[in-house]
């Protein structure tokens, strides 16, 4: 029995409450998702009715093929782009933030206060859009994938550094000392001794940030415009013209781009929860 179970310790009540909770969760959360799935299987005319009905005829495969083929296989290109973006930027974030978080936790210096301030600013301050484009243009990175990858890394670093710093604090210093006595230099100490121990927090960072980067719409919109460079979030606008939205295809697309986060959720539920609730207990 956990703490909160003791709060509601009258056992008789909970069946009615459970029934109410489950029914309302179905209405509020399950029906919208069921609506996506059902509409994705309808034909174009029935989908345009926008109602919650069973499809007259199932067109799952046909809709799937049409969505993939739309605008010269844009969705395929977008999936490739998104995958490259997500993998590269998350890998960069993990390595850089782990190094920074490690030194930030271990080394006491007069700069620590300032560095912590910078890390927190990164969480709070909204990035300035046009000046960032200006900087990217000066560097020759505007409208390029490497540019967007660096942007995602820069904006995601703060969150990762905080997680890594907190986790490094739980690794005993004696371990560092032992490694140093055995002759390890700074790089060796970090990559051979510390980095492998960070495994659980690395998984958390990877899962949370890859969902974030994959779902990101704003940064690709600003920093990587153009159909050739589309990421998956931008493909959603393929099917919604002002007057002739193809709802079956639109919802098929939503369904397809929801699958990667869903897989993450099914396999890494615990790590996602750990990452997103860090800070809830300590404040």
């Amino acid at each position, binding site marked *: 029995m956990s*703490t909160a179970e003791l709060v509601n310790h009258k056992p008789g009540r909970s069946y009615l*409450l*459970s029934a109410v909770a489950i029914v309302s969760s179905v209405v509020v959360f399950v029906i919208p998702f069921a*609506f996506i799935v059902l509409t994705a299987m309808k034909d174009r005319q029935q989908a345009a009715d926008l109602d919650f009905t069973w499809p007259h005829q199932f067109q799952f495969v046909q809709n799937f093929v049409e969505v993939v083929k739309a605008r010269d296989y844009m969705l395929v290109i977008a999936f490739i782009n998104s995958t490259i973006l997500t993998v590269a930027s998350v890998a960069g974030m993990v390595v850089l933030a782990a190094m920074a978080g490690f*030194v930030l936790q271990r080394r006491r210096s007069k700069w620590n206060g300032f560095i912590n301030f*910078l890390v927190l600013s990164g969480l709070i301050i909204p*990035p300035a859009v046009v000046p960032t*484009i200006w900087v990217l243009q000066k560097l020759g990175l505007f409208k390029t994938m490497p540019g967007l990858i660096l942007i995602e890394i*820069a904006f995601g670093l703060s969150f990762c550094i905080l997680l890594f710093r907190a986790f490094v604090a739980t690794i005993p210093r004696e371990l560092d000392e032992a490694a140093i006595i055995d002759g390890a230099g700074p790089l060796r100490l970090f990559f051979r001794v510390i980095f492998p121990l960070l495994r659980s927090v690395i998984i958390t960072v990877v899962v949370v940030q890859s969902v974030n980067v994959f779902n990101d719409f704003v940064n690709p919109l600003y920093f990587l415009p153009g159909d050739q460079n589309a990421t998956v979030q931008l493909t959603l606008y393929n099917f919604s013209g002002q007057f002739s939205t193809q709802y079956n295809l639109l919802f098929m697309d939503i369904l397809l781009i929801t699958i990667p986060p869903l897989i993450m959720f099914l396999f890494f539920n615990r790590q996602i929860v750990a990452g*997103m609730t860090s800070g809830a207990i300590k404040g």
Partner: protein
Amino acid sequence: MKSVTITSIRPRSRSDATPAAPAAGGKFYTPYSFWFYLPTAVIYSVLFLVPTFASFYYSLTRWSLFESKFIGLDNFVLFFQEPALVKGFTNTLIFAVVTSGSKVVLGLLLAVLLTSRIVGRGYLRSVVFFPVLVSTIGVGLLFQVLMNPEQGLINGALGVIGIDGPGWLTDPKWALMSIALVDVWKGVGLATLIYIAGIVSIPREYMEAARVDGAGSWESFRRIVLPLSRPATVTVVILSLIGGLRSFELIWAMTRGGPGFTSDVISSVIYKQYQAGFYGLSTAGNVILFLVVTAIVLPLSWFLNRKEVNL
């Protein structure tokens, strides 16, 4: 003489000590090299700090990315004179306050519910949390369809029980609140999760002691759960305020700031001015957003973190 003074110094405690011995020449050897900061520092400064500082200057100019002309505070004056832009400013504040307020209340209630002994707890937790992971644009387009005034599922359902639903996204009075509603729908799972983590970490003994003393459900909630989940509340408030003030994707997906400019927020104004080529004005919007976020979040987090929990 000197060596005597050295030996008489109390050895520093282990945690304070520099782990490795100082090398010759007075320079300390440390395995925690500042070089480790270098790549992070370069990326972060070039792509985040430089643009942030540059935005302060360029917000005072008429700017075409290649040349800029200093025009003083004209952009800011324009921002606070043009009704469309002022609307964006006030909407941002309303949106952030409404969404974070609802997330705190609903998140806490759901967390208490989902830590109690009810049937299907795991299912409920998953289903409440899952929207957090779904693409914001996808959710926006989904609800655009569900909130369709004539054909939409929501008004259809309300019609069955005899309520004439409003034009959620087409009525200027409702548009912003409808988006806020969807934002809460999508984000409440995260608030709930944070509260659950907070509640679960409350030591059992407190509850047991309260029960022995004869406290009912309400009293234990009021006297124990509420004060002790304060760190969670701080996290939820700060996170959802930051998110709410910066919110763009959902608004863009659902109304693009419309009808008219009644659901514009600062972020959507920034994007619209950027598209229109008014880079100076867009950057001024960014500076205003920066000032709003810091002016609200910094004092608030200082205030919330300062107060100690007294049980």
